[in-house]
C-alpha cells in the first residue's frame, strides 16, 4: 500500500507491506539507523521515536498505523544533522549518561517527552527522582545502571528552569 509519513519534518512517500513495522521502515526503508532494535517484545525501548509528539516504541507499531503522522527520530532531534545537542543531550553528556550508547537514542526520545512535559508545567516543581525513574521504566539499559541518566534528566530540567527564570 502507498503511504505518507512526515519524518523529521520531511514528507516521505513509499509503498509498504501491511505487516511492516514502523521501525523497519525507519531503519531499512529510510536509512535512519539511529533508531535501534534491542528486543522482539517491546520491552527494551531502544526503538522509541516520537509520533505526533508522544514517545512510542516503533517496533510495536505498524507503518500503516502511523500513516500521515509526524515522526521524529533521533536524527531529527537537533533540527539538522549537525545542529547543536539539545539541552537533554548536553546534560546527559555532562553526566556521562551513556556508555555503549545502544539504548541511548531510545532514551533521548523517551526522555525528550518527559523534559518537554516538565517544561510545559512551567517547571514550577522539579521532577522528583522517582518520577524520572518511573518514566524511564520502558527503557532498558545494561551499562549505566540508569543513575547517570537520571542525573542527566535532573540537570536538564534544572537548566531549563534556570533559563526560564532568567529569560
Amino acid at each position, binding site marked *: 500500500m502507498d503511504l505518507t509519513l512526515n519524518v523529521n519534518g520531511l514528507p516521505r512517500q513509499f509503498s509498504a507491506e501491511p505487516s511492516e513495522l514502523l521501525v523497519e521502515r525507519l531503519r531499512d526503508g529510510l536509512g535512519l539507523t539511529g533508531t535501534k532494535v534491542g528486543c*522482539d517484545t517491546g520491552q527494551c525501548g531502544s526503538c522509541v521515536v516520537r509520533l505526533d509528539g508522544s514517545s512510542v516504541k516503533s517496533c510495536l507499531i505498524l507503518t500503516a498505523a502511523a500513516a500521515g503522522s509526524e515522526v521524529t527520530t533521533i536524527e531529527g532531534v537537533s533540527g539538522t544533522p549537525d545542529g547543536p545537542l539539545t539541552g537533554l*543531550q548536553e546534560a546527559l553528556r555532562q553526566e*556521562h549518561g*551513556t*556508555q555503549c550508547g545502544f539504548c541511548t537514542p531510545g532514551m*533521548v526520545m523517551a526522555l525528550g517527552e518527559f523534559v518537554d512535559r516538565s517544561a510545559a508545567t512551567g517547571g514550577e516543581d522539579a521532577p522528583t*527522582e522517582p518520577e524520572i525513574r518511573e518514566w524511564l521504566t520502558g527503557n532498558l539499559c545494561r*551499562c549505566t545502571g540508569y*543513575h547517570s541518566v537520571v542525573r542527566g534528566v535532573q540537570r536538564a530540567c534544572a537548566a531549563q528552569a534556570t533559563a526560564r527564570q532568567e529569560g
Partner: protein
Amino acid sequence: MTAPTGEASVLGAPLDSREDPQLLRGEATYIADIELPGTAHMAILGSEVAHARILSIQTKAAEQMPGVLKVATAADFTDVMPLPCIWIPGGVESHFPPHPYGLPGARPVLTGDTVRHVGDAIAVVVAETPRQAAAALAAITVDYEPLPVVTRADQALAEGAPQLHEAVPGNLNAYWTCGDKERTDAAIAAAEVTVELDLVNQRTINSPIEPRGAVGDYHAATGEYTLYASTQGPHNHRFLLSALVLGIPFNKLRVIAPTVGGSFGTKGYLYPDMALVLLLSKALGRPVKWVDTRTGLMNSTVQGRDHRQHVTLAGTRDGRITAVRCTSHANLGAYPSTIGPGVATALMGRSISGMYQIDAAFCEVYAAFTNTVPLGAQRGSGRAEAAFLMERLVDRYAAEIGMDPAEVRRRNLVPAEKFPYDNGLGWTYDSGNYRENFDKALELAGYADMPARKAEARTRGKRLGVGLATYVAICGVGPSTRMSQEGMLGGTWESANIRVHPTGEVTVTVGSASTGQSHGTVFAQVAAAELGIDPANVQVLEGDTLKAPYGQGTYGSRSYSMAAPAVALTARKIRSKLVRAGAVFLGIPEEKVVYAGGGVHEDGNPENAKTFAELAMAMWYGWGLPPEIEPALDETTHFDPPDFNYPFGSHVAVVEIDELTGETEVVSYTAVDDAGNIGNPKIVLGQIEGSILHGLGQALMEAAEYDTDGRLITADLTGYALPRAADAPFFTLGKTVTPSPHNPLGAKGAGEIATVPPAAAVVNAVVDALSDLGVQHIDMPVTPEKVWRVLAGRTAGTGGTGGTAGTGAAAGTGTEGGPR
C-alpha cells in the same frame, strides 16, 4: 612504579567522554547499521529440541522460497574445523575430541548429527532480505529422534544420566581442584564451629541491549576476508577464526569491531555465525549479514554463573575463620565455549577466600555438560560466584557464634602488612588495605544506625535487613605464562602503538576494543599525561585488526590495567627518543635535556628549547640525526605484566521487605571499591553504578530457567527480568586507592568489579531481615513470591525454615530436588 611526567590534571581527571556526543545523536555505527553494497541476509535455524539425533533435514521447500540464495547445513561445511575451546582448566585433561590443531574442539559451525541444546545451530538460509530469510527458515523441516534431556550439572553427573558426548563419559569435562584438601579437611574436622550451606548460583543471561551480529565480506580478487562483528576482541577472533577454524592465512582475515552495544563478557566468544557469514560470502560472492534477535541471543549466546555448591566454613568461637571448603557442580552447557571451562573453575575456585586470611582452603569443581546453552563469562564472572559463597558463609558463621557480621569480617581481613599475600588457592594478592576500605564502607553506610532504622521500619510494616559483602577480584589478565599454567592456550598480553605525526598530532592504536568504556577518552588521557600534551591532540584507534597492533581485547576489566600501561610505556619510549634527539637539536649533552610540557629545553636555559610540534616535524624530516637515532616517532609496546592485579571492596546493602507482599526493596546501597589509580573517575563511576545494578539483578530477579525438556522458558525480555530504572535508588559510593605494583600506572581492574559483591550483600540483607523466623538462607533470585512464602509460613504457624545449627536450610528455593 614511575609516575607520569605530564600534566597531573589530565590523568585522573573526570573529563567528559569524547565518545558520548556521537552516541547521544544516534550516529554511531553498530553491527546492524552496516549495509555494504549487495548485502544478502542470513538467518540461522536453531534446534527446537534440547537433545535429539537429527534423522533428516528437508531444505527443498526453503530453497524455492522467494529471494532465497542459499540454504546450507553441516554437509556444506565438512572441511571447516570445529570452533576451539582455548581455556580448559589447567592441569586437567579436557576429555574432549581434539581440534585438528591439537586444541580441544568445542563444536562444529553447524550441527549435523546430534543437537544438544535448544538453539543449537542446524542450518542457515541466505536471502535477499532479512524477512525472506526468516520466512524460508520456517520452511525447513527437521526430523528429530528425541534423546533424554538433562539441564543440571549435578544431575548430568549422576548414574544413568543422559550422555551428551561420546568422548566424554559421564558428562564430566573436568574435575578441577585448588588449595590443600587434607589440611582443609583436618581443620574442619578439628574446628570449634562449622557451618555449611547448599547454594544455587543460578544461571543468568548477560543480555547486552544490542544483540550480536556479524557481516562477512569476501573479496575474490585478493582472497581476503573481512569480518565485521560485535566483538570485544577483534584480534583474538581473527586468530581463532583464520588459523583455527577456516584454515586460511592469518593475513587474509581482517576483523572489524564497529561500535559495540555492550558485552559484559559475552561478545568475546567464538560463535558459529562468525564463520558462517565468511564462508557464505565466499560461496555467494556477496557480503552476508546476520543480526540476531533477542530470543536468538538468549538461546545461543553464552550464559553465566550456574554453580550448585556445598560449602563449609570452620572457625573458632571467638570469630577466627580457620578453613573454607567448596564442592561445586558447574554447568558448562552443551559444549565448551571459547573460555567457559576456565571461568567455571579457576576464576571461581581460586577466589573463594576473598579478603580473608584463612589458613586452610580448598575448592573442587565438577564441570559437566548438560543440554543448555554453553556457559561463558558474565560481568564479574567467577569472582561473583566466589564472593557469593564466601560472604554467605561468613554471615552464617557470624549468626552461629552470635557475633556482629561486621566484627567477624574485621577480625579476618588480610592485614595491610601482609601484602603480597598468597591466598593459598593460587592467587597472590598484589596490594591492599582491606581494613581501611571496610571501615569506610561501614561508616558511609551508617552501619551503627541500623538497629534504629530496623525499629523504625517495623512501624511501617517493613522488615529492614542489612547485608555486608566484601570481595577481591582478580583482574589484569594477564601474565601470559601464568595464564598458560591455568590452561589458557594463547598469550594474554596487550599492546599499543603511538605515532606522532609531522604536524604534532598523535595517534594511539591499541589492541583492546571498547564495548562502551570510552577507551578513546581514557587512552588519550594516558598518552597526553605521559607526553605532556593536550589530550585533544590525541586520536585513539582500536577495533580494526588492520589499523591496530595485536591485543587480546576487552574482558575481565583488563583494558585500563593492560592496554593503558602499554600506552604509557610506549609514550615513555617516544619521550626518551625525544630527549636523545633533543640533545642533537639543542646542541647540548643528553643529561642537560629537560622534557616538559611536551617539548624539550636546556636545563637552566629555557630559551634553548623546541616545542612538541617542532620536534615532531624535525623527527619527520630526520635531518641531522646521527645514525643511532632513526627518523620519525613510531613506537610499539607489548605489555605482559609480572602478575595479575587484585581490586577489592566492601559493599553494604540495606533492604526493606514488605510484610504483606514479600517484596524486597533495596533502600540504600553503599559501595567502597578500590581499583588502584583511576584514569577517569567519571567513566569509572558509570561502570561501578552499572555493575552494581547488574549484581542486584542477579540477587532480585534474573534467572535463566529451563523446563524439564530443556526449553529455555525465559527466552525473551518478558520472561527474563532485567533491572529497570525504578529498581534501585541512587547508590552511595566511596573509594580507597591502593595502587598495583604490577603495571606502570598503578592501575587495577575497575569495569566489572562492582558486580562481584551485590548478590551476596542483598541476600545477606534479606536473610538478616528474616532471621528471627529461623531463615538461614534463601536462594536467588529473591522474588516476592519466595519471601512471601516464608512470611506466610510463619503466619500459618508452620514455623520458619531454619535448620539445626551447622546446616544450611534453603528457604523456599522453588527448585526441584536438593543440590548435589
